[in-house]
């Protein structure tokens, strides 16, 4: 009798937990969906951070601003060309921008102390933001509607844009392609080697400059794809639009273990979802602060992140 009773109670409490969970998901579904979508977009930016950090040990502060610039480029191109031309052109110009930034701002400082390169990155970010402010005249620009992905759809009673559904599989495909590239091609092998030991790779005849350029090209290409998805949801572009997503993507990269691509992707999804659930709970003021609190927690308790390698400093 007693056993039946406890079993029954156990069952009941399990049921109620399940029910309340289900209720939680139901009321928060729009936020969770938004979180998954924005998480995927952060992931595409985070890959750029994590790859550059893995190779150059540099926090590329300008990366978020490159992401914003991709949005602006697309806006200006869409004024003169149809979308099927302007989207690929956007990616091309963004890649060119990332490539140029590396050549102009980071390459001359390759042998300088690390803080110099970091200050250069801050300066570059400042320059891009101010250029954007100058060109746009301080007015926010409306991102063009990309027909297919900005269509509204309804999932289990929650209305959202098509981009929400498309983002996760697209991110997974891109990441799989990238991982394959790094694993099986010659340039990928060179990248891994440079990330592991910069100086030795140089001695082994790997063309460092080529590898670094390639890293920036891949990073900015993914950021430009990210910008197409992100600005379809948040259509107003201002010069500081890239700063917050950029920082959050960086936090995602640290969370996942800097240098690790799958880590960055998983970190980005977790951050995107948590941030939106916090918004759903009515704590919008703290949705940005949460990301940084998470960052500090990660840095203190597991500095190598979820998938990062442990490293010790040598004298």
């Amino acid at each position: 009798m007693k056993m039946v009773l406890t079993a029954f109670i156990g069952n009941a409490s399990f049921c109620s937990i399940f029910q309340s969970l289900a209720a939680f998901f139901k009321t928060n579904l729009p936020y969770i969906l938004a979180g998954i979508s924005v998480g995927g977009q952060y992931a595409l930016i985070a890959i750029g951070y994590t790859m550059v950090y893995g190779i150059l040990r540099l926090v590329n502060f300008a990366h978020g601003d490159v992401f914003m610039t991709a949005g602006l480029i697309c806006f200006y191109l869409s004024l003169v060309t149809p979308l099927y031309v302007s989207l690929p052109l956007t990616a091309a110009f963004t890649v060119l921008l990332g490539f140029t930034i590396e050549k102009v701002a980071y390459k001359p400082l390759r042998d300088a102390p690390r803080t110099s390169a970091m200050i250069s990155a801050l300066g570059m970010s400042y320059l891009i933001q101010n250029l954007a402010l100058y060109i746009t005249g301080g007015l926010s620009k409306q991102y063009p509607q990309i027909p297919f992905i900005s269509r509204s759809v309804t999932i289990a009673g929650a209305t959202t844009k098509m981009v929400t559904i498309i983002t996760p599989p697209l991110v997974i495909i891109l990441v799989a392609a990238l991982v394959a590239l790094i694993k099986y091609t010659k340039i990928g092998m060179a990248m891994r080697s440079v990330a592991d030991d910069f100086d030795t790779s140089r001695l082994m005849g790997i063309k460092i400059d080529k590898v670094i350029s390639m890293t920036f090209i891949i990073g900015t290409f993914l950021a430009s794809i990210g910008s197409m998805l992100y600005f379809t949801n948040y259509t107003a572009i201002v010069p500081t639009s890239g700063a917050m997503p950029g920082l959050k993507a960086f936090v995602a990269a640290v969370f996942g273990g800097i240098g690790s691509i799958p880590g960055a992707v998983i970190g980005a999804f977790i951050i995107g979802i948590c941030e939106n659930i916090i918004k759903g709970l009515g704590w919008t003021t703290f949705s940005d602060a949460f990301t940084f609190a998470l960052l500090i927690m990660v840095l203190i308790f597991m500095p190598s992140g979820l998938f990062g390698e442990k490293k010790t400093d040598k004298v």
Partner: protein
Amino acid sequence: MDKKKQIIISIVLIIALFAGLWITERLVGTNSMLIVVLKKAVIYALLVASINLLQGFSGLFSLGEAGFMLLGAYTYAIFTIPEAVKGNVYQYYNGGLIHVNLPVWLALILGGLVAAFFAFLIGFVVLKLKSDYLAIATLGFAEILRAVFQWDALGGITNGSNILRSFPGFKSVLYPFVVVGLCMTAMMLLINSSYGRAYKAIRDDEIAAEAMGINLFKTKLQAFVISSFFAGIGGGLLAMYQLTVKASTFTSGLSDELLLIAVIGGIGSMTGSVIASFLYVAANEWWLRFLDQPAFIGTFQVPLLRSGFRKVVFSVIIMVIVLFYQQGLMGTREFSIVGIYEKLTGLKKKKKVKASGGGTEK
């Protein structure tokens, strides 16, 4: 030149500076561009110097300056808004919770202490991190502080996301100069003390410094707390200058801007920071304003001149300095009257030495 002579010369110069300022203010009026620029520049000088104390002298890369400025500015504002207007300022929060009024100087110091206290707490957590992680973590703390100060639940103290205003500002340009002068003197004394040398040792080589018996963590924490104290005072002064305080303006962009000014002046040079601050503020607020206005020569419109161009020019200058003149204006040298005097007289001495054919190289 002996020490006594140096001190006398310094005092005379300082008195001359203040007399000059006082007379200039009488001549051109308190609200003239010159005085406004001088006020802002001297506050920036303190802020940039406090960044330099960390970045240039202790090798700690922090991007959290704005957060400590925010603490200083809010503390100052909260404790100096006159009781009579509190109901007006805190109109959504029943006149606020804090009904203590402090004199201006005490509120400024309290602002510094609050910033230092938070730096102490934060430092415990983040100072174990290495360069770029430290930068990102301090930046994160500044952003968290910014969010907390806009939180409704603290509205009785911080006025939520509304502005704080109606607190006393500067009556004369001399006030910020005196405060900043005192702070800068304290900083210079600190740098040249044994504490300052410990900071420099850590900056140059952490492991060697530790081997020489310097307690890394304690020394770093000390530098961090002291720098934040001055950042807090600078924040309070900035509030006095602006006459309003709003949490959302203390962004990471502000920290970046101040750090870049420190780079212009030379990381590791206090006087460089001061010179760069004055140049930056004067150029930004005054001399380069024309870049933002469309200009015509006859009927020909000068190209590029448009709102925002000034900032672009600035960023390009900063990038050029970062890439090609990493030393900045001053490098790690300090500008001093004594130095100039010795250089002038030293040249003569050197010639004499050469003429006599030898002597030890210094």
